[in-house]
């Protein structure tokens, strides 16, 4: 539902895609079990990726189980269960990130536009505190990153410093998946760093037009010299999107280089698919195909 870090379905083996869906379903179930049924709305592709990466680094045993979907009892689905903490951590991350995103919303948008977030905040806040109780390090890393990002954006800093907090956050989270003596730790950290950076930049590129319209801060505005503009003419829009795509390409390249050096069990192919092909596809869909603006019928033609 939410999230930019997705696999490229067309370039995956059918069984790999089935595994991905099963992990997604399992994360949904875990969210419901740990944080209540409404928490399932916090489910995201990004956190599913985190869970799969965790399982691939730790090499935990996994088991498939056929059951009914928790949301739609008429649908049968497969759950990918694991013994360890991976799904619980991913669920905690979902809740924490949703909480911070809502808080950000309050600060960025006007009162009425953020009314929805305002009303959800107390409930999500309680769940976030629960997550913090279980995984204090995760919560602390997330809180620090959000604070640093808020500060960088308040200072109207450039693209790189604004992306740094999210980059650092994912770098820390990924590195933490491996044991301290593990030789892969630097590679994991670097992969996380550039993936976090990619997510921030992708979000900024996606929101660029809306931010221009509302006069909100976006690091690409100053970078591309678009201050003072409210609307972009088609050629300007294309130029802006090409420029954003370049920044994303450079970041994705570094992420792929780091991912190359990881030795992953279990779901290595899925992780590599995301790093090498998934990110590119999302860039294409959002910046060039403009999928968010097209009605469903047109999307099927693409």
């Amino acid at each position: 539902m939410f999230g930019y870090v997705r696999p490229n379905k067309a370039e995956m083996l059918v069984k790999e895609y089935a595994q991905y869906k099963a992990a997604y379903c399992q994360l949904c179930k875990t969210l419901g079990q740990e944080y209540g049924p409404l928490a399932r709305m916090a489910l995201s592709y990004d956190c599913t990726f985190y869970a799969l990466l965790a399982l691939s680094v730790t090499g935990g045993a996994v088991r498939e189980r056929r059951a009914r979907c928790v949301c739609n009892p008429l649908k049968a689905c497969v759950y990918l269960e694991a013994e360890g903490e991976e799904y619980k951590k991913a669920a905690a991350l979902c809740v924490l990130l949703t909480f911070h995103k809502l808080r950000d919303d309050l600060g960025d948008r006007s009162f009425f536009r953020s009314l929805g977030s305002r009303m959800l905040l107390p409930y999500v806040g309680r769940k976030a505190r629960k997550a913090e109780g279980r995984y204090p390090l995760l919560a602390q890393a997330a809180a620090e990153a959000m604070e640093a990002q808020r500060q960088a954006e308040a200072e109207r800093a450039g693209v790189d410093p604004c992306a740094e907090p999210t980059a650092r956050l994912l770098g820390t989270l990924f590195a933490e998946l491996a044991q301290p003596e593990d030789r892969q730790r630097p590679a994991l950290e670097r992969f996380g760093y550039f993936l976090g950076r990619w997510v921030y930049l992708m979000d900024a590129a996606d929101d660029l037009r809306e931010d221009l319209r509302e006069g909100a801060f976006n690091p690409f505005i100053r970078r591309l010299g678009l201050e003072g503009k409210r609307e972009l003419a088609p050629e300007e829009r294309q130029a802006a999107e090409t420029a954003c795509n370049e920044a994303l390409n450079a970041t994705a390249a570094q992420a792929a280089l780091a991912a190359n050096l990881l030795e992953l069990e279990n779901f290595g192919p899925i992780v590599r698919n995301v790093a090498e092909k998934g990110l590119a596809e999302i860039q294409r869909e959002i910046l060039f195909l403009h999928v968010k603006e097209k009605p469903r019928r047109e999307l099927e033609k693409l």
Partner: protein
Amino acid sequence: MTDPYKVLGVQPSASDEEIKDAYRKLAKKYHPDQYAESPLKDLADEKMKEINEAYDTVTAQRRGGGGYYNGAQNPVGGNRNSGFSDVRSLIMSGRIADAEQILNGVPPERRNAEWYFLKGSVLYRRGWLEEAKDHFSRACQLDPGNGEYSAALNQAMNQRGGMYGGYNPNQSMNGSCNTCDMCSGLLLADCCCECMGGDLIRCC
């Protein structure tokens, strides 16, 4: 010692050509140049060494020896006429923060092309790719003929173009003409020609 065939990703029954292709593909993927400015350089070098050893073992088993890819030229070399040799050696030994501190201490009037290149390298290693590219551009602007600086800028531009990851909007997926298309086109033309009594390609 791990199975060299497994490292190369081929069957023991693979032909020499397949072995060479597999090696080339892996060497391209883990090429040291890509990791030269990265903190993961050591990990990548080890991987490359493993691949080279596997290739050597396999070729030695089959005939006698085979050359392999030469090691990386580390873009931030140490033995040259440099005004910042201390910074260069700090970067090479991985002490990026110290290198950056020295660079930041240089007053604006003394910031020459080399300064911009080294600052760009430091930024690149830290992951601040946009500012790194700006600095490399400036270095090339101030010293256009310099191979070291233009190589760094070229690598940054290639990565931005989607060559190593990410999406390249200019690469047409459906319209490109490749050798497979050409060859099958010719075969088809030959067939049609023969149907009409001629013979375009004698040997088909």
